[in-house]
C-alpha cells in the first residue's frame, strides 16, 4: 500500500485540510524565482535561457528515467524536479556549456534525490549537490564569469560547446565581485550588488529581486523566516567584527550580505523544508552555523565563495540538530543520562 499513490490515499485522523500540497509549495517557489529568472534573461540574454533549460532538462529527464512508470505522472507533476533544475540553473555561470548544465541537472536529481529514496528523504539540497559536483568536475568552466550581455542575441560560444568538450576563453572573462575582493581587495559598490548587473552566476546578480521573492514565500507561509534572518544577521555581525578590525583586508558587512550566492542560497536553498531542522531552536542553530561558515570560507579559506559548502555542511548536521533540540513532550520528564 502506497500512501503516495493518488488513488489510494490512506490517512489517519484528524482530517484537517490545510490547502497546502507539495505541488502548490513548489509552484510558489517557482513564482518567487520568476523575477530573478527574468532578470537573468535581461542581463545575460539567450545564455540564461540555454543554461537554465539544459539544467531543467537534465533534472526532469533523470527523474523520468528512474521513477517507476506507475508513479511517473504524479512525481513529475509535483514540480520538484523542475524546481531543482531551475535553482541549479540560476547558480551556474552564464557561459557554461549546455551539456555541463544538463549533467549538473542529472546529478542533482540522481545523486541528490533519487538515490536517497526520492523527495523528502534526501539529506542534502539536490540543486546544491548538482552544483558541488559541477564545481569539482569542471572547475575552470564553473569559475569563468562573463560580464552581462549587450543584448538578448549576443551569443556566448561556450554555451554551444559539443558534449564533452570545452573551449577555454581568455581575455573575455570578468571577475566576480567576490573574486575581486578575495584576490585584489577591490570592493564592488553595494548598490550595484543590490540591483544586479555584476558578473556572477545567472540568478545571484540582483539581491533586490531575490528578497522580493523571499517576502512572497514568507507571506505564503512556504519558508521559515528564522532561516534567512539568522543567516543574514550572523553574516552581518561576524563580518562587521572582522571589518572593524581591519577594513582594508576584510569585506564590509553589506558587501558580504549582497555579494555572491548568499541571497539565493539563504532564501531558496537553506530554507528547503526537507533539509533544514524542524524545531525553532534548531533552525536558529542551522542559520547561525551557515552564516559563520560562509564568512570563514570566504575570508580564510582558499575559495572566494562559501555559500554552497556552508549549506551542504549544515544540511549534513541537520538530523543531529533535530535530535538535540526536540522539545520536551508535555507531561514527560527530560530523559536522564544513564
Amino acid at each position: 500500500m502506497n500512501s503516495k499513490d493518488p488513488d489510494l490515499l490512506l490517512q489517519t485522523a484528524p482530517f484537517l485540510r490545510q490547502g497546502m500540497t507539495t505541488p502548490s509549495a513548489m509552484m510558489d517557489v517557482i513564482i518567487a524565482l520568476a523575477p530573478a529568472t527574468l532578470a537573468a534573461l535581461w542581463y545575460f540574454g539567450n545564455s540564461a535561457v540555454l543554461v537554465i533549460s539544459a539544467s531543467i532538462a537534465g533534472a526532469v529527464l533523470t527523474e523520468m528515467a528512474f521513477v517507476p512508470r506507475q508513479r511517473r505522472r504524479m512525481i513529475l507533476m509535483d514540480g520538484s524536479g523542475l524546481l531543482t533544475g531551475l535553482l541549479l540553473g540560476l547558480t551556474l555561470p552564464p557561459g557554461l556549456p549546455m551539456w555541463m548544465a544538463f549533467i549538473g541537472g542529472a546529478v542533482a536529481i540522481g545523486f541528490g534525490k533519487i538515490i536517497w529514496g526520492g523527495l523528502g528523504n534526501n539529506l542534502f539540497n539536490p540543486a546544491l549537490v548538482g552544483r558541488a559536483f559541477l564545481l569539482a568536475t569542471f572547475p575552470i568552466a564553473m569559475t569563468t564569469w562573463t560580464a552581462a550581455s549587450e543584448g538578448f542575441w549576443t551569443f556566448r560560444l561556450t554555451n554551444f560547446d559539443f558534449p564533452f568538450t570545452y573551449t577555454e576563453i581568455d581575455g573575455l572573462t570578468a571577475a566576480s565581485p567576490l573574486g575581486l575582493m578575495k584576490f585584489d581587495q577591490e570592493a564592488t559598490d553595494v548598490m550595484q550588488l543590490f540591483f544586479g548587473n555584476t558578473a556572477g552566476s545567472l540568478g545571484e546578480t540582483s539581491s533586490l529581486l531575490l528578497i522580493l521573492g523571499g517576502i512572497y514565500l514568507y507571506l505564503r507561509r512556504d519558508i521559515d523566516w528564522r532561516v534567512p534572518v539568522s543567516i543574514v544577521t550572523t553574516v552581518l555581525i561576524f563580518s562587521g567584527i572582522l571589518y572593524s578590525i581591519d577594513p582594508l583586508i576584510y569585506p564590509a558587512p553589506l558587501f558580504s550580505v549582497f555579494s555572491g550566492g548568499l541571497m539565493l542560497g539563504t532564501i531558496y536553498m537553506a530554507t528547503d523544508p526537507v533539509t533544514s531542522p524542524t524545531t525553532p531552536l534548531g533552525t536558529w542553530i542551522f542559520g547561525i552555523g551557515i552564516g559563520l561558515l560562509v564568512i570563514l570560507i570566504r575570508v580564510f579559506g582558499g575559495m572566494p565563495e562559501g555559500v554552497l559548502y556552508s549549506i551542504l555542511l549544515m544540511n549534513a548536521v541537520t538530523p543531529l540538530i533535530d535530535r538535540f533540540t526536540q522539545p520536551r513532550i508535555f507531561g514527560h520528564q527530560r530523559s536522564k543520562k544513564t
Partner: protein
Amino acid sequence: MLFSNTEDYEEFSKGIWRDNPVFVQVLGMCPMLAVTNSAVNAVAMGGATLFVLVGSSFLVSLLKGWIPKQVRISCFIIIIATFVTIADYTLLALIPTVHKELGAFIPLIVANCMILGRQEAFASKSTPRLAVMDALGMSSGFMVALLALGAVREIFGTGTLFGIELFGPAWEPWVIMILPPGGFLTLGLILLVFNWMSQRKAMFLERVAEAEGSSQ
C-alpha cells in the same frame, strides 16, 4: 594446463566473480579508493597485492602446523609485512615513477583486510597448493575490480586509458573523477550495477526453477 583438477579451478575462480573481494565482500577499500585514479596505478597496486597475497598465503599454509594459534594473527602480520616491504623496495628500484604515484599506499597493503582475511579464513586451513590457487583467484578478482575502477576514472578524469589519449585534445576532463570523491562515486555506481546484475540473475534462476517445478 594450469588447473589440473576442478578443485583447483573452483578455488581460483570463486575470487574473480562469485566471492569477489571488492564487489561481494567489500574488502580492501582503502587502496581501492586511493590509488585507482589511473589504470596504470590500478595495475601496479593489483600486482603488488597479488605478490603479497600469493607469497603470504603460500607461506602461511606451509607453516600452519608450527604456528601456535594464540599468536597466529601476529605471525600472519609478520609474514605479510615482510612481503609488503619486499614489494615496496622492489617497486621503488624497478619502476620509481609508479612508486611515486602510489606512495604511502604500498606499505598500507599490510592493513588490507582482504589479505589477513584470506590467511585466517583459508590459507591457515588448507594445503599450500589450494592456498596459492585461492590467493591467485582473490588477487585476480581484486585486480579486476581495481582495473574497472581505474579505467573508468582515468577515461573520464583525463580522457586517456593507460596513458593513451582516447578522444583528442578537445576532451574536457572531469576533474572530480581523479579526486577522492570520484573514487567513491565510481565505486558506488559499480557496486550498484554489480548488485543489480546479481539480483537479475537470482530472479532468472528462480523463474527457471519455478518453470521446471511446474512442468514436472
